[in-house]
């Protein structure tokens, strides 16, 4: 995307006042987004973004400047601004020869979305609308959103790293509303991947729509969720969202470095049930949270976070890894050239156990079963977390009872992970968008069915 000579010149300028390293992140991203709402193709938007960010680091401090111009003048200006942030100027730093890294790609599009006519993409959304409305006369509104993008990045660093990667993202979302006598309920489904349009063949729009429609219509029969402590069974995929919020965020190295993590100083301790083994893995081919290199140019990897309940890994970006004298775990990510990288998750999974999902449910006398999640939030310093239940059911004598609405689960990271008393073998994933420090990033979550012996369900019922 840029000539090597210019990249070197920018890095040299960025190291004018020293610092521990300098980095240039260049991005070009083309996007298509189509929204069908209220039976109409409302909006088809295409756009082109490009820009570059220069970072100069000094220990865990950094200066960052970016521009959405890629000419020499703008890049050198950004380099100057980023280097000027260093408190005390020292001797200029060196820039090593840039060596291209050529790892096998973790993600690739077989059939690039850009080669498919926009009218075909519009047809997928029309399928979503028709399928959802055909599910039930109680379906009252359908929104379908299709999006694809191709992000091309170049990352070059003063210690000689030169990395290029293309990241093709694709997602199709169905949101369905069902109504009955003034009772309005919603259902959502939104599969996503780093892939070409072959992903749509594997995840037909019709099925996405029917799943969302079934959720919305099911919830019309719901009763208010109970309030108080009880057993909670999380269906396949759902435990991954809890693991992401409650455990993953406090393991991100910036929280640990600021002593704002409930897990600080506790590496090697048993802080979860021995049934829990969890990983963060950016190397899963074409998964929504995968990449070949992170946004600092570090190779993606699989990090074991909990091994049979023992805390084994932090999620590192470069700044915190250098401070701790360890290699980065490849978790330095950023939303775009307009954002400095921060440590964050990729695909975060609880791995399969040995129980059968049917046995886990059958052995639960009373409680709540969660079959679709609505996202959550955590305070990494205290470990207090909350997440919403998009589709859930009462459990009565080991079988599913009435659906429940308005449920939220709340707990503390360590206590809840210690309370996991069954893990099944039916692993599944859930794709979401995670927000942190004002930046959003595609993340995958995953888990088999698992049970938490007791946690607080926040409803309004008895």
């Amino acid at each position: 995307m840029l000539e090597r000579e210019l990249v070197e010149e920018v890095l040299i300028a960025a190291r004018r006042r020293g610092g521990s390293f300098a980095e240039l992140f260049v991005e070009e991203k083309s996007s298509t987004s189509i929204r069908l709402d209220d039976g109409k193709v409302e909006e088809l938007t295409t756009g082109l973004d490009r820009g570059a960010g220069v970072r100069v680091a000094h220990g865990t401090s950094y200066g960052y400047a970016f521009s959405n111009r890629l000419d020499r003048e703008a890049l050198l200006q950004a380099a100057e601004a980023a280097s000027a942030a260093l408190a005390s100027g020292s001797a200029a730093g060196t820039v090593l020869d840039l060596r291209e890294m050529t790892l096998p790609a973790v993600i690739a599009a077989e059939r690039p979305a850009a080669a498919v006519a926009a009218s075909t993409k519009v047809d997928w959304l029309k399928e979503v609308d028709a399928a959802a409305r055909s599910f039930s006369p109680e379906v009252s509104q359908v929104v379908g959103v299709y999006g694809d993008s191709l992000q091309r990045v170049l990352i070059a660093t003063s210690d000689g790293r030169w990395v290029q990667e293309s990241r093709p993202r694709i997602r199709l979302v169905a949101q369905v509303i069902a109504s009955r006598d003034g009772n309005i309920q919603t259902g959502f489904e939104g599969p996503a991947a780093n892939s070409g349009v072959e992903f749509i063949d594997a995840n037909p729009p019709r099925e996405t729509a029917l799943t969302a429609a079934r959720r919305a219509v099911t919830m019309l029969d719901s009763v208010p969720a109970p309030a108080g402590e009880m057993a909670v069974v999380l269906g396949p995929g759902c435990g991954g969202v809890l693991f992401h919020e409650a455990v993953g965020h406090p393991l991100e190295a910036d929280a640990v470095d600021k002593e704002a993590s409930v897990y600080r100083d506790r590496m090697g301790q048993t802080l979860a049930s021995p049934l829990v083994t969890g990983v963060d893995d950016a190397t899963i081919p074409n998964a929504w949270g995968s990449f070949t290199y992170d946004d600092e140019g570090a190779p993606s990897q699989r990090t074991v976070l909990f091994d049979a309940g023992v805390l084994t890994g932090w999620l590192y970006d470069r700044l915190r890894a250098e401070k701790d004298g360890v290699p980065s775990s490849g978790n330095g990510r950023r939303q775009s050239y307009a954002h400095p990288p921060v440590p964050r998750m990729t695909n975060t999974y609880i791995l399969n156990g040995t129980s059968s999902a049917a046995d886990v449910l059958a052995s639960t006398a009373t409680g709540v079963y969660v079959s679709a999640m609505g996202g959550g939030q955590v305070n990494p310093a205290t470990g207090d977390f909350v997440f919403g239940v998009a589709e859930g059911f009462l459990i009565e004598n080991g079988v599913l009872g009435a659906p429940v609405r308005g449920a939220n689960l709340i707990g503390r990271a360590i206590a809840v992970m210690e309370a996991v008393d069954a893990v099944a073998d039916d692993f599944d994933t859930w794709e979401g968008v995670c927000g942190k420090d004002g930046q959003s990033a595609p993340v995958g979550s995953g888990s088999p069915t698992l049970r938490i012996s007791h946690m607080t369900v926040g409803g309004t019922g008895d």
Partner: protein
Amino acid sequence: MTDLAELCLAAVEAAAGDESVEAFAESSRRTEVEALRGEVEGLTFAESRGVGVRLIVGGRLGYSYAADPSLDEVRAAVAQARENAALATPDEFNVLPQSASAEPMPSLYREEQAAMGTDEKVALALQLEKRCVGTDPRVTKVDLAQVGDAVSRVAIASTTGLSAEYARTDSWVVAVTLAVEGEETQTGFSYAIARELGELGWEQIADEAVRRSVAMLGATKPASEKVPIVMDPFAGTTFLGVLSAALSAEAVLKGRSLFAGKVGEVIGSELFTLVDDGRVLEGPGACPVDDEGVPSARTELFTRGRLNGYLHNTYTATRMGGDARSTGNGQRGGYRGAPGVGTTNFFLQNGSTPLAELYRKAEGGVLIMDVSGAHSGANPISGQFSVGATGMRIRDGALAEPLREMTIASTLPEMLAGVTGVGDDLRYFSSTGTPSVLFGEMTVAGV
């Protein structure tokens, strides 16, 4: 560099005979400084500009955008929007607003802030962190001490002859402190936003974050029960976001609002008056025109509990028909998207009850100081919510022990009807504002 108005004009001039074209151009310069352990942790400079083009032909809408475009790239964006429009469904209500004169608001832009050097912002961030860790022995660390500002310009022009341009400055400080006692850590958050840093009162923000973190030390999980609730402005503002989504005419028209078909009905208590007003200068959301160039205005959505109407942009007003007009609430998240419906300054009208009186009326209840998980736990379509909360027990008319790991749950209509007291301490967060509010009863879930 081509100025924003010129870029917009190039787009408008590229319109073919029967096309309506609107261009929205935006530029911003933003600085953020974060301090940690007495040093600058991060300093980020951001400069960006871009143009978004909305094109309507035969009722079909197409959109395209480009970052930092040349005049030729703007013309290419118009051609791309034309191509995109060809695939859209015709919708007779897709129209651009007519030109209307808006009272300018020159005080949104402060020369002093625009000219402020980086050194001064760095010094302030360091002072902010120092004050956060220097006033209470239990608070020796921050999670975040940030000072930031942004200088932005917007230009809008269209084939209807509409043309608008304005500039603004914004500045903010954020503090998140960590209070530690024994094995326990608690966090405290505070935030303020103003046109210029000189008007912020950053010392109070540091002190408030410290107070809020220390207050939570020793917090326990309460019993599950129905009790009176006082919501402070930090917690209350979260619910305003959910309410604004349900009051958007777009949500109403598409069957996604619990308030659809309820205009004229009394839904809230008579203490509940909810306003959107883009012309309140002291509000962070002030703007002379909205993001499609319609003059900003005051809209009273609820008056003493009665629903008067909804928030409109040009599309929703045209589609709703009758006497519906754009309320100046066409908003977009930047040049990358077409305008939807959003708020300007959106606030619950200040009441007259002192805080002490609210506490006295909430005997045995809970003060809610922070709400989490609203993006998944509060549903603006069904009106149900269940969210995580932290706060303090109210006993003998005063705040007693701190509480954590609880949820509060209800529905929006029950909540609005349940307002039994409104404080006199209206405060803005971002562009939403609320005073402390007393609710007669709500379900708290804990043990």
